[in-house]
């Protein structure tokens, strides 16, 4: 029984679907709504079959208006519900920005804890699927810069299940970023939720020479890079952040202090991006352990490119390996670390 619960092989999309179904089953206050999430099952089929199984009262289509979806979710949460809403694509969530930043994120604080809003906003994000403009943004930094929100993103099907269940159970509002290019990747899923807590990062692959810090869609790319790096003689550790806010300083710091080198990888543009925060935090805590400045491998500082050019924009194995190669392997000061 335990083995069966821990080793279900499924795609990330199926894992998310299972998480929603199990949450709807476990708690009648959970509602799922958004654009096309009803009979169609969502454009990525993440809500497939839920409308038929749980009925129109609990899983339903809304008018096409993102501020309306989030604003009404806030009202429902004020009245005891636990809404899980879908923004169809990353850039389509922007009309809801005011409701998210001014109300969802702040109401607990504004009311000194009297109003609690356990709302989950699912956002398929990132590129790599040949999507046309406004369908491929990596919008995480907008949300992580907003106190009061939790921001999480799974890199594997197992985490997709675990993190979504945890997000729905969380008393805080959660922005749940789903790496859409990984929806169809398969992996083991532990339905008994035996993984680490929602706000903990995870060492996906141990290594001793350099730490690759990644999240969401870049976790698989980082693991691929780590495999390729062995040919260059580098033993690469991969840390999957999972929770972007709050940030798990402990796990990341422990890893970087051990390896002495780090590269942060994300799809989003680099300037003023999430990686800047990671580099600053890790440097502040690991300065005397570092052999080289922490580097970032990110998307360029451009609007997301058209599909036929996106391969040039997205960080890939070669670009990450190049960054690892620039970590001052030859000019190490002997004895510096005592």
């Amino acid at each position, binding site marked *: 029984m335990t083995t069966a619960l821990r080793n279900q092989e499924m795609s990330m999309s199926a894992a998310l679907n299972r998480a929603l179904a199990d949450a709807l089953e476990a708690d009648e206050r959970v509602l799922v709504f958004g654009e096309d999430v009803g009979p169609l099952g969502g454009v990525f089929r993440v809500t497939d079959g839920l409308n038929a199984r749980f009925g129109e009262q609990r899983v339903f289509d809304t008018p096409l208006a993102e501020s309306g979806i989030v604003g009404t979710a*806030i009202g429902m*949460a*004020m*009245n005891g519900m636990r809404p899980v809403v879908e923004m169809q694509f990353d850039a389509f969530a922007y009309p809801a920005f005011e409701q998210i930043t001014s109300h969802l994120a702040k109401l*607990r604080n*504004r*009311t000194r*804890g009297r109003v609690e809003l356990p709302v989950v906003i699912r956002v398929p994000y990132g590129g790599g699927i040949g999507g046309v403009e406004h369908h491929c943004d990596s919008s995480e930094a907008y949300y992580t810069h907003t106190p009061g929100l939790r921001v999480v993103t799974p890199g594997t099907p197992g985490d997709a299940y675990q993190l979504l269940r945890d997000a729905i159970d*969380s008393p*805080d509002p959660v922005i749940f970023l789903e790496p859409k290019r990984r929806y169809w990747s398969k992996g083991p899923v532990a339905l008994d939720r035996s993984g680490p807590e929602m706000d903990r990062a995870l060492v996906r692959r141990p290594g001793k020479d350099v730490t690759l810090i990644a999240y969401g869609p870049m976790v698989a790319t980082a693991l691929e890079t780590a495999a390729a790096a062995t040919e260059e003689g580098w033993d690469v550790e991969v840390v999957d952040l999972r929770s972007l806010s709050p940030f798990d300083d402990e796990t990341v710091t422990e890893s970087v202090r051990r390896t002495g080198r780090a590269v942060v990888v994300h799809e989003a543009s680099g300037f003023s991006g999430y990686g800047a925060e990671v580099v600053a935090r890790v440097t502040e805590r690991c300065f005397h352990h570092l052999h080289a400045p922490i580097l970032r491998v990110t998307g360029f500082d451009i609007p997301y490119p058209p599909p036929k050019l996106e391969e040039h924009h997205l960080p890939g194995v070669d670009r990450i390996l190049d960054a690892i190669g620039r970590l001052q392997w030859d000019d190490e000061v002997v004895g510096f670390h005592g």
Partner: protein
Amino acid sequence: MSVTGLSARERSLLPTDLPLALLDRNGIPVDDPALEMPADEVLLELHRRIVIGRRFDTQATALTRQGRLAVYPSSRGQEACEVGAVLALREQDWLFPTYRDSVALVTRGVDPVQTLTLLQGSWHLGYDPYEHKVGPQCTPLATNTLHAVGLAHAARLKGEDTVALVLLGDGATSEGDTHEALNFAAVWKAPVVFLVQNNGYAISVPMSKQSAAPSLAHKGIGYGVPSYLIDGNDPAGVYATVREAITAAAAGGGPALIEAKTYRIEAHTNADDAGRYRDSEEVAAWLDRDPLDRIERYLSTRGLLDEERRAEIQAEAEDFAATVREGMNAEPELDPAHLFAHVYAQPTKALREQAAMLAEELAS
């Protein structure tokens, strides 16, 4: 091209050409009213609450001059809406107010000092929304309309008999959230009453620059929401309309949109100079339509309001104002630890560190 005729449904959604009312500007009952006159005890309570509400409003403005309030947006002249709509609510109903609706809050029973906490600047919200079923006062306009729809829809899903009344102004009807809220409410048949207090100005911008619609109530038909244009300075008419809309919504009839035509006698806030955008003749004309005068004249003519009762209510209002002064003159309790305590259900490690840093700074 001409419109040859409207269907019965279309007609049922449109407002009347002239604002509905029960009492004219002189407090004389209108002929053949479309609304039902409230019972005498309701009319007396409307009068009493308006006197108290207006005294509160004057007191709050005075507190800005003494530096006790950072700012205060007065609702003087709009008391028929502030009081009439709130008294029409049932105990189980919710109110979603804006920043101009402090009089509505105290009428609902919210503690006056807690009502003014936001404007005092000691915290963002002083009252517990669940205590009197009053949502947070909304400063980003129209965002509260969606909260009202969500709360009311959830009530229906739970089988609760709850209606949400959301207050908004003429300016807020231009915001996208208002339109999304009307649409969501209509599609879901959510029990929500939208009351637009059209006081003529969004800070300085007049209606002529705000909307080209025949009336703001006309915005309802496009969403399938029945709409009412009413005289917003007639306390009896506002009460009767809102009450009727609440009754219909509670019975499953869905939302309603009410545009109440009224006027903001004071400037936008104490920090505003209304002389830059409107003339005193206009204000004088509206002073002549005062909601308090109107109900006083009616009740006096009916023999329901004598000098003794009037004096009692005035004394009660003065007592209330004294309570407000006393409460606001007391130094507010400011606890810097609250800055970190309610960002998340449990403070994160980073917030605990920052709280400790601030505590250390304060101790040294």
